[in-house]
Every structure is written in structure tokens, then in C-alpha cells.
């Protein structure tokens, strides 16, 4: 066997692509500002499905409303109905979830429909009579029955089924009677927290009845008695299109419902079949005004509020119409709240809060309905009528503003309306300070709305002056934070005055003495993140008064999140050189690290902070004071020692530091040694062996660069011993791991080219070592072995060249080509070593059990051999054998096989040996 002679320079010249000089690095960022302002190409041909739909939604809220309005007016009534039905369904769901209920409910005797006879323990009549005489109060209590929530719900479902069955059996009277009984359940408001659920369940039943009645009358209008079709009613039919019989039936329904004795069920039933007014009148909504008036007779505020809610819902099913009556609804509910305030003086504020919270969904929904169909032009009118805007004719005293109404109004109004009337709303909020809703939440909502559409500068000034007068009065940190947080975007947008100082002073006054409650952390976090994302430079943020001080009172996950933002900000704006900043960031990182360490967060969650800390460590720059830098790394190791990822970063950093020191050309041998020592000490504590190995190799390379041969040898030894201890790490190894190992082995081999051989141990001492480890390890796959053999063969071939392809970048280290210049024993050693490896290689390929793998490995081995050895009698049979194996294992069209065979033919031409017949 004989090694091929390689001329690396010529090979490089012939194989490399032509190169051009360039003035600019194509990827370099020229300045941070331009990065932001990179203009998009004018014509983007790319079709981005996400962006396209986004553009549709991005139209301003006002336009959105208009579109909706138009579509309601248009013929696509059906879709609008479906949309509102969907909205209603989700509203009902939220209503049921919002109010948690005790397991049992005491219901008054009037809900007899729920309590089946015999289910509860009735007292014997004589006793009742006696008690009656005794004390009338007792009788009232006896009427109360306890039932579980589940029973109540399932009983209502049963009733629904019963109604359905009765209807299908053409027994409509029973269906109606049962529905009335169900509607009567809503008269009992003593269930309080359960009332919304009852409302949802009952209206479900009523909606079903309404649909059935509608279908029946429609059928009567469209079909004759004997089932023949008379006509088909269009979606927007007129009352005149409806036949006499159908009208008669419809009228009968309203008569039946009109004869219900109690007011509340009568209203609910009429609302349930309200759509049917369309068969009788072309302007059915006019009846809604009467119903709203009739609801004045409902004295119970809760019953009244939900009744109005149902009206608002049912009116959505009608064709578009004037919705002035909704204003009356809101005003009616409002009056109830005002009266409630007077009459409930005796009650605790907790009770009042709770009763308001029960109304709240109703108010919210009605206002939503009201504003959805109101265009901008008429908004002013609506505000006047709601008593929110004073008018010459209508003094606002009559119906003063109620904060909860104001709240929902603010929530539903388009942000540009709020924005252009900001001061007015500010005044309204100021005026409405009542028990129904916390004032500061309204201020907060206003702020959030304004942030969606920031008003003009002049208005902002006045608003901020006002709001800061307000918040200055707040003693509690929570209120202060919530309101300030809401306005922060505006303040930052205009960069006005020294409000930031005021805010931070305010927070520090309120927080630093009393500490921060957990509920307040969220707002604080939001404020800090806004500040951090506003400023370009971290130092500007840190320079703010009290910033660090306030940061210190934070804790828990909020603190971690803010810390992450700080690190993120710090590491994105270039190297960190300022010692104070560095110190702060170090503390921040430490806190973050400890946070991860102590709370057993999942690995995925801890990745982000770890990356940030690594990045911080990488971005630290001490300039020329490299000793300090190394000290810093030592400190970091102490602080973050428990995390593999960070230790890896530290090793990288110390290596980088060493290289930097060498580049500075000032020769600091001792410093270099310190860096290498740092790496050497740090690497063993990393728990993943393959990473250790890679780091050792990296450190070895650095040591080699610095001319520290003995260090290099030691590090290489450590790397190889890592290979040995790989087995112990764990049993199951994934293919990815193996690929990692093979690439590390190859890296080692390429490094060995530069490392001077040890004449005492022999030039092939290290490769032999590697091979013996590889062959001794039982877990190592054949594939890995074959590839290692190939790598070692390539290494030997390269070492045999008289001019090595590359050398260590150090004058003090002599390459093997010079060290063993034309030393025959050296070449002999390499050759004999290689030939034994080639033999092993062939054996291993033959033994590979997997057919496809065997084929491709044979080709790999063949290519390695061809490129390493001259063709001669020893080599050609081996190659032929390998090709034979590949041929038998692989598909005849395999391109790797083809190109190998082609190459082999060219290669053999140079030799005298006969080309083996290759059938493809």
C-alpha cells in the first residue's frame, strides 16, 4: 500500500469557486436606526394569507361599525342573525360561568314547577294549619324549599323536553302552559347568584318555544291545510303577504299570552314569540316600546334588569329598526340602581356590590346592542338621552350618570369617539362616584381606550393634568398603579413633561414602605415592561428615579419577567461596558437564575431566561482589562454554577478571552494559562459528556494557538477520556447523539493534524487510542466505527504528506511535516497503522446486518480508500470487493453508487491493473 500524494494548494485552486472582492458585508447592520426603518419594497408580490385577512380587520373601528351597519341594512340578514346568535350563545355561557353558586338553592314555593310533588317532605296539613295560626311568619318560611343546583338544572331540562314532546304531539296548550310555568321561575329573585343561570335556562326554553311558534305560523302562511304549498314567504316579507289563517293563528297566540295573569311571565312569553309580530305588522318593533313601558311594573331590580336584557336580545332577531327603546331600557335599569342606593342604605356595601355585579352583564349587553347599531352621527344623541351629556331641554339631574353604565359605555364605544371626547368623559367619570362601580377602574378604562387611539397633543396635556390630580389623591398602590399603567402609553408617546418622574415617585412612596401585594405586581410589571420597551437604551431606564428601588420590592414571577426584559434590553444594544450597569445586570441575572433554580420550572420555561443570562455573559466587555474579565467569569461560575448551559458559555467566554489576548499581540503567557486553567476546571462539572468533549477540543485548539503544547496534549487526553466515559452516561442513545459523536471524532482528527506527534509514544499514539476505545465500547454502532475508521485513515494519509494542508497559527509549534521530515520510520508507522485499519474497515462493512446501510457504508469506505491510497494490487481488490457489496445491497439506479463507480474507473485508468467488470 502506498499513500496518495496530495497537493492541497492546487486542489483548492481547482475546486474552489471564483471569488470577488466586495466592499460591504452583506449581512452587516449598518446602524441600529436604519434597521427599524427598512422600507418595504413598494410592490410586494408575495401573497401573505395572514396579512391579507389582517388588512381586512385593520380598518378603523369606525369603518368596522359602518360595514356592520350596512350589512344589517342589506339583504344578508341571515348571517347577521347567525352572528348575533353566536354572540348571544357565548354571552350566555359566560353568564353561567361568572356566578358561582352554592350547591343548594332555596327556592320559594312559587317555583312549584321545579319541585315535583312528593319529592320534598311535606308537612301534614294539620300541622301547617296549627302553625298558620301560631305565627304567619313561619308559614312564609315553610314555603321555602331546598333543592340542589343539579336538580334544578336537570328539572328544567326535563321541562324543556316535556314542552317539546307536547308540541310534537300537537298539544300546544300544554306546551304553552308549561312554558308559562317555566317563565314564572324568573319571578323568584331570592336565588340571587343563581338567577343568571336560571335566566339562561329559562330563556333557552322560551327561545325554543318562540322558534316553534314562528315555524308553525310560517307554515300556516306557506301551506294550506292539506299540505299543498300556497306561497313561499321571502325573508323580508310584509304583513300583507301573510294569509288570513296564519294571521288568525298568530293573533290567537298573542291573545293567549295576553291572558297570562302575572306581569313578568307575560312579558317574557311575548318576547319569546315577539318575532311573530312580523306576521301582523310591518313595524313590529313599535310594540317593543310598550313592552319597555310595561317593564316599569317590575319592581324587583334584578328581575327588571334581566327582563330588559331579554328584550335587547329578542329585538336583535327583528329586521333593523330604530332602537331608541334600548336607551329607555338603560335608563330604567339605572333608575333601579339609584333607587337601590337609597333603599339599600341599611345593607352592607358588600351586598350592594354583589347585586350590582348581578346586573352588570345585562347592562353590558344592552349597551353593546345599543352601540352596535348606532352610527357615529347619532352617538351624541344617544349620550344626551342617556343623561351623559347635558342638553338645554334635558337637565342631567333627571337621570344622573351611573358609573357602571358609564363603564360599559366606555367599553363599547369606538375608541376614536372616546378619544375625541376624552375630556368630557373625564368629567363624567369625575361626577359619577357611586357604589355601583369603582371610579378608578373607569379612569383606567378611559386610559386604555385612549391608548388605542391617542388624542392630539393639546388634549393630552389637559387629560394628563387632570388624571395626575386624581391619582395624587389615591392612597392605595393598587388604584395608583392601575390608573397610571393605563395612561403610560400616552405619556411615553408624547414624551411629555416629567410625568415619568412623578409616576415613579408616586409608586415608590406607596410601595416602598408598605410593600407590594401580589395583585399589584401585575400592574407594576406592565409599567416596567412599557418603560423598558420605550427606551432604546437600558441606561436611560436605569437612570430613572427609583427604578432600581422599585424593582427591589418586586418578587415572584413578575420580578422574573421584568428581569428578563431588562436583560433582553441590555444585551440587544451592543457590548456592556459600564461597571454599574454590569453590576446591576449581574444581580438581575443572579436573581433570575436563583428563581429558576429554586422553583422547579419546566425545562422549556427556563430556557428563555438561561439564554438571556448567557447572552449577558457574552456581551460583557472589559476592554483591555482582561484580568477583570476573567475574574468576572469566575464570579459568574460561582453564581450560575448549577446550570450546564451557562457553564458552557463561561468556557466559551474564557476561550474567547484567551484568543483575544493573543490577538492583542501582547504576550501574556500567564494570563493565557489562567484562561486555559479556568476552562480545564470548569469543563468537568458539565454533566453532558459529549459537550465536555467538544469543549475540551475547543480549549485544546486555543491552547495550541497559544503555543502551549503540553496543555494541548492534556486537553486532548481529557477529550479522549470523555469518549471513553460516554458509555456510562446513559443507556439509550438516539441517532442524533451518534452523529454528534462522529463529528466530534472528526473534529479531533482534524485537530490532530496540527498537533506535533510525540516521538516517544509514536506518531499514531492518539489515533490508536481512539480506535481502541471505539472498538472496546459495546454500545458503539458499526456505522460509527466505520466512520471513525475512515476519519483515522484520512488523518493518516494527511499526516503522511510532505506539506500539511494547515498548521497551528503559532511559530513555536512545529507541524509533523517538519518534525518528521522524510523520516522513514514515521511513514512506515503510518502506513502499517492504516493498512490494519483498512482491513478492519472491510471486515466491519461486511458484518453490517442492515442491507441498505451496508451498501452506503461500503461506498463511503470505498471513497475514503480511493482518496487515500494509490491504486495497486492491494487496494484494487479491496475497492472491488466494496463495490460488489454496494452493488448487491443498493438499487442499480443509486446515484452515489454510479458516481463512485465512475470515479473508480478514472482512478483505475491511472493504474495498470485491469478494471473490474462493474455491472450496473
Amino acid at each position, binding site marked *: 500500500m502506498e499513500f496518495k500524494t496530495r497537493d492541497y494548494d492546487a486542489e483548492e485552486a481547482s475546486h474552489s469557486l471564483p471569488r470577488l472582492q466586495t466592499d460591504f458585508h452583506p449581512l452587516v447592520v449598518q446602524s441600529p436606526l436604519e434597521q427599524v426603518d427598512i422600507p418595504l419594497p413598494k410592490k410586494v408580490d408575495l401573497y401573505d394569507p395572514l396579512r391579507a385577512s389582517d388588512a381586512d380587520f385593520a380598518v378603523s373601528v369606525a369603518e368596522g361599525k359602518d360595514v356592520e351597519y350596512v350589512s344589517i341594512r342589506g339583504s344578508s340578514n341571515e348571517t347577521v342573525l347567525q352572528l348575533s346568535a353566536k354572540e348571544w350563545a357565548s354571552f350566555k355561557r359566560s353568564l353561567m360561568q361568572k356566578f358561582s353558586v352554592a350547591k343548594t338553592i332555596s327556592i320559594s314555593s312559587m317555583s312549584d314547577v321545579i319541585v315535583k310533588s312528593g319529592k320534598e317532605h311535606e308537612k301534614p296539613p294539620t300541622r301547617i294549619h296549627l302553625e298558620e295560626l301560631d305565627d304567619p311568619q313561619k308559614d312564609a318560611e315553610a314555603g321555602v324549599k331546598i333543592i340542589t343546583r343539579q336538580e334544578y338544572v336537570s328539572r328544567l331540562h326535563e321541562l324543556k323536553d316535556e314542552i317539546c314532546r307536547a308540541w310534537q304531539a300537537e298539544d300546544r296548550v300544554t306546551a304553552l302552559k308549561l312554558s308559562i310555568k317555566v317563565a314564572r321561575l324568573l319571578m323568584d329573585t331570592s336565588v340571587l347568584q343563581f338567577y343568571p343561570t336560571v335566566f339562561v335556562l329559562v330563556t333557552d326554553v322560551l327561545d325554543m318555544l318562540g322558534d316553534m311558534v314562528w315555524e308553525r305560523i310560517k307554515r300556516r302562511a306557506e301551506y294550506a291545510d292539506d299540505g299543498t304549498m300556497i306561497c313561499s314567504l321571502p325573508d323580508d316579507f310584509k304583513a300583507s303577504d301573510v294569509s288570513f289563517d296564519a294571521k288568525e293563528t298568530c293573533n290567537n297566540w298573542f*291573545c293567549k299570552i295576553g291572558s297570562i295573569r302575572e306581569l313578568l311571565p*307575560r312579558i317574557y312569553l311575548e318576547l319569546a314569540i315577539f318575532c311573530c309580530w312580523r306576521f301582523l305588522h310591518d313595524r313590529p318593533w313599535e310594540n317593543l316600546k310598550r313592552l319597555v313601558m310595561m317593564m316599569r311594573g317590575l319592581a324587583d331590580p334584578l328581575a327588571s334588569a334581566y327582563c330588559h336584557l331579554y328584550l335587547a336580545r329578542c329585538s336583535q332577531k327583528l329586521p333593523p329598526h330604530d332602537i331608541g327603546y334600548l336607551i329607555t331600557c338603560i335608563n330604567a335599569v339605572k333608575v333601579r340602581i339609584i333607587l337601590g342606593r337609597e333603599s339599600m342604605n341599611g345593607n352592607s356595601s358588600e351586598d350592594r356590590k354583589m347585586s350590582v355585579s348581578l346586573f352588570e352583564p345585562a347592562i353590558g349587553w344592552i349597551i353593546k346592542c345599543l352601540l352596535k347599531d348606532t352610527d357615529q352621527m347619532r352617538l351624541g344623541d344617544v349620550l344626551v338621552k342617556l343623561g351623559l351629556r347635558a342638553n338645554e331641554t334635558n337637565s342631567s339631574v333627571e337621570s344622573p350618570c351611573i358609573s357602571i353604565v358609564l363603564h360599559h359605555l366606555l367599553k363599547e364605544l369606538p375608541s376614536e369617539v372616546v378619544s375625541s371626547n376624552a375630556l368630557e368623559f373625564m368629567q363624567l367619570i369625575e361626577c359619577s362616584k357611586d357604589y355601583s362601580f369603582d371610579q378608578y377602574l373607569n379612569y383606567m378604562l378611559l386610559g386604555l381606550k385612549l391608548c388605542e387611539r391617542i388624542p392630539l397633543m393639546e388634549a393630552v396635556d389637559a387629560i394628563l393634568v387632570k388624571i395626575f390630580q386624581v391619582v395624587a389623591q389615591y392612597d392605595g398602590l393598587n388604584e395608583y398603579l392601575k390608573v397610571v399603567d393605563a395612561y403610560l402609553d400616552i405619556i411615553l408617546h408624547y414624551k411629555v413633561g416629567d410625568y415619568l418622574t412623578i409616576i415613579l415617585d408616586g409608586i415608590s412612596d406607596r410601595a416602598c414602605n408598605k410593600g407590594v401585594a401580589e395583585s399589584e405586581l401585575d400592574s407594576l410589571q406592565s409599567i416596567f415592561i412599557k418603560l423598558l420597551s420605550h427606551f432604546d437604551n437600558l441606561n436611560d431606564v436605569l437612570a430613572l428615579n427609583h427604578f432600581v428601588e422599585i424593582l427591589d420590592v418586586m418578587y415572584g414571577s413578575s420580578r422574573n419577567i421584568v428581569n428578563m426584559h431588562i436583560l433582553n434590553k441590555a444585551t440587544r444594544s451592543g457590548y456592556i461596558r459600564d461597571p454599574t450597569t454590569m453590576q446591576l445586570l449581574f444581580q438581575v441575572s443572579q436573581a433570575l437564575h436563583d428563581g429558576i433554580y429554586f422553583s422547579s420550572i419546566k425545562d422549556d420555561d427556563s430556557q428563555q431566561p438561561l439564554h438571556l443570562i448567557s447572552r449577558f455573559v457574552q456581551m460583557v466587555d472589559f476592554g483591555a482589562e482582561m484580568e477583570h474579565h476573567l475574574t468576572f467569569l469566575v464570579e459568574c461560575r460561582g453564581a450560575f454554577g448549577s446550570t450546564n448551559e451557562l457553564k458552557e458559555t463561561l468556557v466559551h467566554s474564557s476561550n474567547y478571552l484567551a484568543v483575544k489576548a493573543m490577538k492583542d499581540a501582547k504576550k501574556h503567557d500567564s494570563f493565557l494559562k489562567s484562561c486555559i486553567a479556568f476552562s480545564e476546571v470548569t469543563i468537568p462539572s458539565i454533566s453532558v459528556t459529549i459537550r465536555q468533549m467538544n469543549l475540551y477540543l475547543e480549549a485544546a485548539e486555543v491552547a495550541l494557538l497559544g503555543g502551549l503544547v503540553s496543555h494541548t496534549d492534556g486537553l486532548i487526553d481529557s477529550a479522549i477520556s470523555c469518549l471513553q466515559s460516554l458509555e456510562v452516561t446513559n443507556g439509550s442513545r438516539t441517532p442524533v447523539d451518534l452523529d454528534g459523536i462522529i463529528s466530534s471524532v472528526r473534529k479531533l482528527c482534524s485537530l490532530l493534524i496540527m498537533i506535533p506527534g510525540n516521538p516517544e509514544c509514536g506518531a499514531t499514539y492518539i489515533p490508536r487510542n481512539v480506535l481502541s476505545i471505539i472498538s472496546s465500547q459495546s454500545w458503539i454502532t458499526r456505522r460509527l466505527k466505520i466512520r471513525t475508521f475512515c476519519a483515522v485513515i484520512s488523518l493518516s494519509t494527511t499526516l503522511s504528506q510532505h506539506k500539511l494542508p494547515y498548521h497551528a497559527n503559532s511559530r513555536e509549534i512545529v507541524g509533523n511535516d517538519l518534525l518528521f521530515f522524510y523520516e522513514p520510520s514515521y511513514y512506515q508507522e503510518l502506513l502499517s497503522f492504516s493498512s490494519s485499519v483498512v482491513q478492519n474497515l472491510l471486515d466491519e462493512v461486511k458484518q453490517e446486518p442492515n442491507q441498505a446501510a451496508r451498501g452506503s457504508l461500503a461506498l463511503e469506505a470505498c471513497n475514503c480508500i480511493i482518496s487515500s491510497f494509490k491504486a495497486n494490487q492491494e487496494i484494487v481488490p479491496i475497492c472491488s470487493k466494496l463495490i460488489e457489496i454496494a452493488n448487491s445491497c443498493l438499487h442499480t439506479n443509486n446515484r452515489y453508487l454510479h458516481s463512485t463507480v465512475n470515479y473508480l474507473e478514472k482512478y483505475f485508468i491511472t493504474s495498470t491493473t485491469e478494471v473490474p467488470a462493474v455491472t450496473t
Partner: protein
Amino acid sequence: MSIELKLSRSNRIYRPSEPLEGKIITKFPSSIYHQGIRLTANGTVNMQVRGGTAGVIESLYGAVKPVSIMNRSVEVRSSGKLGSGTNEIPFSMTLRQQGHDNSEPFYETFHGANISIQYLITVDINRGYLHKSLSATMEFIIESEKGNLHKAPLSPEMVVFYITQDTQKHPLLPELRSGGFRISGKISTQCSLLDPIDGELTVEASAVPIRSIDIHLLRVESVLVGEKIVNETSIIQTTQIADGDVCRNMTLPIYVVLPRLLTCPTVFAGPFSIEFQVSIVINFRSDLSKLHPKSDPRTPRLWLALETVPLRLVRTKRDSL
């Protein structure tokens, strides 16, 4: 074997001048011979005296001789044979006889407690002496003639009422007397049968919380028995317009849909009369009321305040239907 009557209108409402149309449906397993099929339309006012202001002797009499409004009979088929299976025999019958003037009063159908005005149509298939004759009867409903109707729209006649502790003739709870209350409003006194009773009501003041405000629709049936007129007033319908202690000085609407069949135009005939009243009842919150949960709502109780006004019901043209 079945025989059935089916009228041309599903609501069975006819006017005296209109022909009563429909069909006789027979279902026989085998064909039968008959001696003629005869239709009879019959209208009567049935009266009885029971309760009310009737004395013991009148009560013993019970029924008062009924008043016949109409009785017409026509032969639809002369004697012959009816085939097996289903046969449909259409008919048309004039209710008001030709030549008679319109003075013959066709009272509207009404079913009350003491007075019942009912129209029936009967079909008889006479099958001779050997077989039982077959017959079926059905009620049809008479509404007043279009020509006689008031010209719509009816002029709204409203009465203004005040209910205070001083307008009440019966004893009241002491706290009602001392605290006082004032409820005002207006309500229609003449009303089309097709329209709801209209009006409004305002609670201006009330020291005692209100439990409920109800509108009772009452009918007053008077029957002449001998020399004496016997009255009976009964509640047809109760409609609640306020549930609970409603806001003061807020106008509540009064909107009462009139029940069909239980109402008819106000009638003053010789032997009987049918009139209507509306009663506004304010029910104040009181523990005493719980002791009498099932009492007649018309009885003046300590915790009730009421006001009753007459109501004239008239038949108007249907415009929208």
C-alpha cells in the same frame, strides 16, 4: 260508522249575512239507505239563575226559559243511498232568512256563568224506524254584521281615576289610613273587542309598599226572572300590571288583551243583559294577606284598595286582519 261536520272556516266565525258553508263527511263500512239528510242551524240564549243576587225561590227555578234566536232547517239530500267508504256532502246555508229585515237580533256568541249564547249546527241522517238515525253537532260562532258595526276608529273614551285612602268605602289597615296613598290614572271605558284595554296608572305616593297592582276584567250578567232582575258579577281575567313596590311617579301602561269567547259586545236585551267592568286593585304589602291566600280578589280586604269603572265593549271592523 262515523259522521262528521267540517266548516269552511277553521275559526268557525260567521256573520249572520254570510252563508254557513262546509261539508258533511261520512265514513261507512258498507253503503246505507237513508230517508233524507237534514241540516239544522240553531241559535239560543240559555239563561240560568244561580248565586248572585238571586233569591232562594229563583234559585229553585234554576233555568229560565231560553230565548230562541234562530232555527233553520234544510234538507241537503232527499232519501237515497250513501256509498261505502268516505263521502263528502258539501252544503251552504243562509243564516238570515230572506225577506226578514235586519231587526232580528243575532247576538254574538258568548259563554258566561249565567248566560250562554250559542249557535249549533246539526246534521241528521234519518234511516227509518228500523235503524238508529245518525247525527253530528258542531258549534259555530257568530260575530256581528259588518254593516252594523261602528265606523272605525272608535273614539277613545277614557275616564280619569284617583285612588286614595278616602275613596275607599271599606275598612283599611290603620297604617294605610294614616300613611295614605294616591294612585292616579286613566282607563278606557269604551273599547273595541279587537283592541286591548288601554290606559295608564301612576303611583304618586304610598307609605305602605305595594305588593301588586292588578286589573280585573269583570262581566255583569243580568237575567229577568219574573219581575226581578238577577245580577251576577264574575271575574273573567286578571292582569297584573305591577309586581312589587314600583317606582313612584312613573307612569305604568295598562294594556289588557281581551279574551276571545269570554267577551262579546255589551248587550242590553229585554230578558237579559251582558255588561262589563274593569276593576283596578291595589294590593298593599301586609302580613295579614298571607292568611287569606285563596280569597276572592273582589272582596274588599283591609290591604286592598280598588276602583271599578264600567267598560263598554263594541265590535269594530277588522282593519288589519
